[in-house]
C-alpha cells in the first residue's frame, strides 16, 4: 500500500528488496482453450529471468537514472515500481503518490476532446474535477495546444498527443515520477521546456526515476545512477562514476 511508512523512517521513497521477476516466454502464445489444451505437456514455454534478486533504496528527493543496454531489465524495474506488474519474489514499497511517464497518453480516449481527456487522465492519478479545475489552465498552457484542446484527440498529431500527455503527467502533483525515455517529446523547443520543467520538479524535492539512453541528459539531471546488466545491479553510485565505467565497458 502506498501509504505504508518504511521501516527506516519516512525519507525512503522507494524500497526494493530482493526482487526477482520472471517472464514466461511462450513460443506460441495461446489465448484459446483448444490451444492451451493442445500445448499441455509440450515444452512451448520457458522462463526468462528479467531481474535477479535486485535490491535498492531510493531516498526522497533523489533523481536516479537506470542505465543499461536494451533488454537489461530497466523498463521492467520501472513497471514494477509502478505496480503494473508484480514480482515473483521480493518486496517493493512505495511512499508517496506516483506519476508515471512510462507510456504517455495511455488511456486517452481518442473520441473525446483534449479537455475531457485531461479530466480522465488526471482521474487515473486519483484527481477529481475539483482538483483539476485549478490546474487545468496551466496544463493547457503548457501543452501549447491552444484551441485544439476542444477537438477530439484523434485529430491530434503524435507531437500534440505527447505534449498533452506530458503536460498532464508533470502537473498532477505527484511525489514520485517514473520516466521512461520520454524526453523525446515534440520539437526541440518543447523538449527544452520539458527538461526545464523536470528540473523545476527536481528542485521542488520530487523523487525521480529515469530510464534513459541519453548520456548528456542523465549527467545533467541525475544525482545517482544504477547500472543494470542482465537483470542485476552491477554498479550503484554517483552518476559520473557509474557513467564513466558504463561507457568504458559498453563502449
Amino acid at each position: 500500500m502506498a501509504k505504508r511508512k518504511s521501516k527506516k523512517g519516512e525519507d525512503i521513497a522507494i524500497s526494493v528488496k530482493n526482487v526477482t521477476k520472471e517472464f514466461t516466454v511462450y513460443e506460441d502464445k495461446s489465448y484459446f482453450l483448444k490451444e492451451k489444451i493442445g500445448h499441455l505437456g509440450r515444452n512451448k514455454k520457458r522462463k526468462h529471468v528479467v531481474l535477479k534478486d535486485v535490491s535498492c533504496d531510493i531516498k526522497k528527493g533523489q533523481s536516479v537514472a537506470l542505465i543499461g543496454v536494451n533488454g537489461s531489465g530497466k523498463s521492467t524495474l520501472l513497471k514494477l515500481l509502478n505496480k503494473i506488474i508484480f514480482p515473483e519474489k521480493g518486496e517493493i514499497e512505495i511512499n508517496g503518490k506516483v506519476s508515471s511517464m512510462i507510456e504517455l497518453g495511455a488511456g486517452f480516449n481518442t473520441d473525446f476532446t483534449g479537455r475531457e481527456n485531461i479530466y480522465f487522465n488526471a482521474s487515473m492519478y486519483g484527481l477529481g474535477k475539483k482538483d483539476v479545475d485549478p490546474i487545468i489552465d496551466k496544463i493547457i498552457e503548457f501543452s501549447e495546444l491552444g484551441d485544439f484542446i476542444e477537438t477530439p484527440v484523434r485529430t491530434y498529431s503524435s507531437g500534440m498527443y505527447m505534449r498533452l500527455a506530458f503536460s498532464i503527467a508533470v502537473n498532477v502533483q505527484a511525489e514520485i515520477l517514473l520516466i521512461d525515455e520520454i524526453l523525446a517529446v515534440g520539437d526541440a523547443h518543447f523538449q527544452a521546456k520539458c527538461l526545464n520543467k523536470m528540473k523545476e520538479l527536481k528542485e521542488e524535492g520530487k523523487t525521480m526515476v529515469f530510464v534513459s539512453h541519453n548520456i548528456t541528459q542523465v549527467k545533467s539531471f541525475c544525482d545517482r545512477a544504477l547500472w543494470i546488466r542482465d537483470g542485476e545491479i552491477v554498479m550503484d553510485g554517483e552518476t559520473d562514476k557509474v557513467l564513466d565505467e558504463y561507457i568504458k565497458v559498453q563502449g
Partner: protein
Amino acid sequence: MSFINKIKEIYRYRHMLFTLVKQDINGRYKGSIFGFLWTLLNPLFMLLVYSVVFSIVFKSNIENYPIYLFVCLMPWNAFNTMIGGGTTCVSNNASIIKKVYFPREVLPLAVVISNTIQYFFSLVITFIALLVSGIGITWYAVFLPLVILVQVVFAFGLILMLSAANVYIRDVQYMMNPIMMIWMYASPILYSISMVPEKWQALYRLNPMVTIIQGYQNLLYDRTLPDFKALGIVLLISLGICVIGYLVFNKLQRRFAEEV
C-alpha cells in the same frame, strides 16, 4: 493487500470510476443524433414489435402476453448486456492495463454501474407500457429497487470471475453467448413458471434468475408482493459469489498486464 485497503484504494480512484461510467454512457452513442435517447428507443421498438407479433400472429395463453414478455425481457436484456460487457471489460482495456496503474476492480465496477444506470432509464418505457396497456402501476413497484439490487449484486459477482478468467482464456467470452441463450430459456421469460412440470420445479428454481425474474413479474405484472424469502436467499448466494469472485479476481489480476 487487505480488503479494507482495497476499498480505500478504490475510493481514491473514485474519480476514475465516475469518468469511466460517464464515458461509457456518453461514448456509447457518441456521434449519433438521438444519443442517449437510444436507450429508450431500443426497448420501445422491441415493445412495438412484440405487441404486433404476439397479439396478431402468435396468440399465447398468457394474458396480456406482450406486456408479460416485456416485463421479463427488459431485466433479462439488462442482465445479458451487463454480463456481456463485464466479461470483456478487462481484456478490452489491455492498452491501459499494460501501461497505467489503477486498482483493476474499477473496470468491472464501472461496467456494472453504467449498465445499472441505463437500465433504470429504460424502465421508464416499461412503466409507460404498463400504463398504456391499462395494467397500471401499483405501490408494489416500490420494491423494484430491491429486485434490481439482487440482480446487480449477482451479476457483479459473476463478472468479477468472468472478466478475470477471460484474460487468460479468451474462450470465456465466446462461451457466454450459448450459455446466456440457454440460461434465458431456463428462466421464466417467454413462458410462465406454472408451465414448468411439477417434478422439475425444485431443480428449476435452483436458477437464481428464476427468483429474480419472478420478482419483476410479481411487482409489475401480477401486482403482488414478491417472495422476499427467496429473494433474500438469492441475495445471500449472490454476496457469496461476490466474495469468491473478488478472491479469484484478486488472485488473477497480478498477471493481467502480462497476459492481456
